[in-house]
Each structure stands twice: as structure tokens, then as C-alpha cells.
């Protein structure tokens, strides 16, 4: 069977993502590194599209590639002076190479194992419904047909409507708690990045909590 279009698309975008991720670590300028990271995130957003996660794909671009990376770029511009080279990056330690080799071996082992051992599931016959716990039941129902036509037809209905409905009904409490988290993070960021707290506390006239 010939190689399908889908895998060609996947290969192109995943390859670009991996290359950009490697470039992120290898380029000298931190601004270029941040732009490479933006590229990785956009490629991942395309992979989300291929996985029918449409809403998430847009969120990835807007929040990650937009907001978070603009924050990073602001801070990089704040510190970065183009003339100054980073001497610590030039020295390639022996430990760095050893770490890279160890990580690469582990990665290869994991990938090969996941490819080769995955089919083992089918050797045992499908457990009967009586043997399954309640948690396992729906999983076992759908794990039979990964990415087949029927599954992808069901996935097609995973539109933003469904995400929003679940986010605001079943997962309402965690969703509201994240707003609290974001508020705490915002206050924390403002307090941490405030300029020279002792002087301000002195000028504010004694309500000086740090």
C-alpha cells in the first residue's frame, strides 16, 4: 500500500517541529531561540488540527505562540545585548555529550519498544464486559478501533461546542480554580518584578509589607 497523504503531511510538519526544537537549543541568539520555539508551537498546532482538536489548535496559537512567547520575547529583549557573546555556551562539556548520548539511547529504546510491544495487547482476547471495572469499560469500548473511519467520524463531532460544554459543566470547578491560579500568578509576578521594594516601602509611609 502506498504511503498516504496524511503521513506525508504529518512527516513534513513533525519534521519541521523537531528541527526547530533542535535549532532552539543550537542557535546563539536567544531571540532566534524564542522564534524557533514559536515555530515549534505552530507546528504542534497543525498536528492538533490533524488530530481533530480544532479548538485546542487555535488556543495553542493564541495563548502559547501569542501571549506566552511575547512575554518571553519581552524579557529577552530586556536582558539581551547583541554584542555580548555567551561564553558559557561555547564550552562543550564532556558531561553534556554524555547526557545527550544517554538521553538518545533512552529515547530510541522507548520509541522502538512502543512500536514493537504495542501489538501485544491483541494477543489476549478482549476482556468480557463483566470483568471490567466501570472505569475501564468505555476505554475498552473505543480502544478497538483507533483512528478508523468510524472513530474519526465520532471525533469530527469533537468541535469547540463539545469542549466548551464539558468545560463549563463537568469541569466547571477546576476551570474556575484556574482563574484563581492566574490571579495569584499575576499578583506574584507583579510583586516579584517590582522595582526596588525597600525604597517604595519607605515612600509609601509605613504600610510596608513586602
Amino acid at each position, binding site marked *: 500500500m502506498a504511503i498516504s497523504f496524511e*503521513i506525508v503531511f504529518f512527516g513534513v510538519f513533525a519534521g519541521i517541529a523537531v528541527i526547530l526544537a533542535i535549532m532552539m537549543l543550537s542557535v546563539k541568539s536567544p531571540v532566534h531561540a*524564542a522564534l524557533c520555539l514559536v515555530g515549534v508551537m505552530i507546528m504542534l498546532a497543525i498536528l492538533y488540527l490533524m*488530530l481533530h482538536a480544532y479548538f485546542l489548535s487555535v488556543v495553542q496559537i493564541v495563548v502559547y505562540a501569542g501571549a506566552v512567547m511575547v512575554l518571553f520575547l519581552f524579557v529577552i529583549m530586556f536582558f539581551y545585548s547583541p554584542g555580548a557573546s555567551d561564553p558559557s555556551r561555547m564550552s562543550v562539556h564532556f558531561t553534556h555529550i554524555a547526557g545527550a548520548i544517554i538521553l538518545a539511547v533512552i529515547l530510541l529504546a522507548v520509541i522502538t519498544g512502543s512500536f514493537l510491544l504495542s501489538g501485544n495487547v491483541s494477543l489476549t482476547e478482549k476482556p468480557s464486559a463483566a470483568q471490567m471495572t466501570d472505569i475501564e469499560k468505555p476505554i475498552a469500548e473505543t480502544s478497538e478501533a483507533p483512528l478508523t473511519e468510524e472513530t474519526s467520524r465520532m471525533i469530527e463531532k469533537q468541535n469547540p461546542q463539545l469542549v466548551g460544554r464539558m468545560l463549563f459543566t463537568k469541569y466547571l470547578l477546576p476551570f474556575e480554580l484556574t482563574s484563581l491560579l492566574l490571579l495569584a500568578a499575576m499578583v506574584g509576578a507583579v510583586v516579584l518584578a517590582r522595582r526596588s521594594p525597600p525604597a517604595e516601602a519607605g515612600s509609601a509611609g509605613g504600610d510596608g509589607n513586602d
Partner: protein
Amino acid sequence: MDNDSLYFLSNWANVESGGNALLTMWNIFKHISIHHYLTVAAIIFTIGFYGVIVRRNAISILMSIELMLNAVNLNFVAFNQIWGLKITRAAFTSNEDVLTPVGQIFTIFIIIIAAAEAAVGLAIVIAFYRQRHSVKVEDADLMRW
């Protein structure tokens, strides 16, 4: 069904009974499946992890952490497509089966927390720079001894 039998082919049994391991892997690789997404996620995660342990610039470390979080997100979305909980929703004429996007919702939470982490982390970097005039992590040695 081609995809079906392919995915649940007993790969390892094939290799054990004298099949070529590389050929078996290639046979899986020819068709798009969750393995591809997991492989890409694993590669990106490893690159991010390598960045975390190698880089000394605090901002680069934070960016590498973002890379790792992105890889985990890709895992979540990929797994959601085959192991998402199936629910039956009442449609206009009949009931229809839909996969609940639990993995996508979890990914949204991860994105929110990553945004908070980036904001606080970068604020810490700025505060640290004001103290030490450096963004190198090895300069943060006040509690070293």
C-alpha cells in the same frame, strides 16, 4: 479493516517468530497511527529535557520547560483520540456516539498553568537579575553552602 488489523497486529510475536524487526516497524510506520504522534512527542520532550539540564541561561531553561510541556500536550491530545471516553448524546433523530474531549480539556488546563508558570518564572528571573546582574543559574548560589 486495514487500519484495525494493522494496529492490533501482534508486532512482537511477529518479531519473535523470526520476522524482521525493522520491517515490522516499517509496516506500522507506513500508516498514520498514535505511534507517530507519541514518537514526535517523545523526541521533542527529550530535546526539551536536554535543554533543561544543559543550558545555564534561566530564560533558555524556561523555554525548554515550555517545550517539554508542549510535548506532553501532544501526548494528551493523541491519546484522547483513541482512549477518550465515549458518551452517547441525544441528537435530533437518534442517539449518536461522541468521544468526550477529556484530554483536550486537560491540555487546556496545562496551557493555563504553563502561562502562569512562565509569568512567575520570568518575574523571578527579573528579580534575580536586579540582585545579581546575571541570568545564569549558577549565579544563584546563596543557599549553596
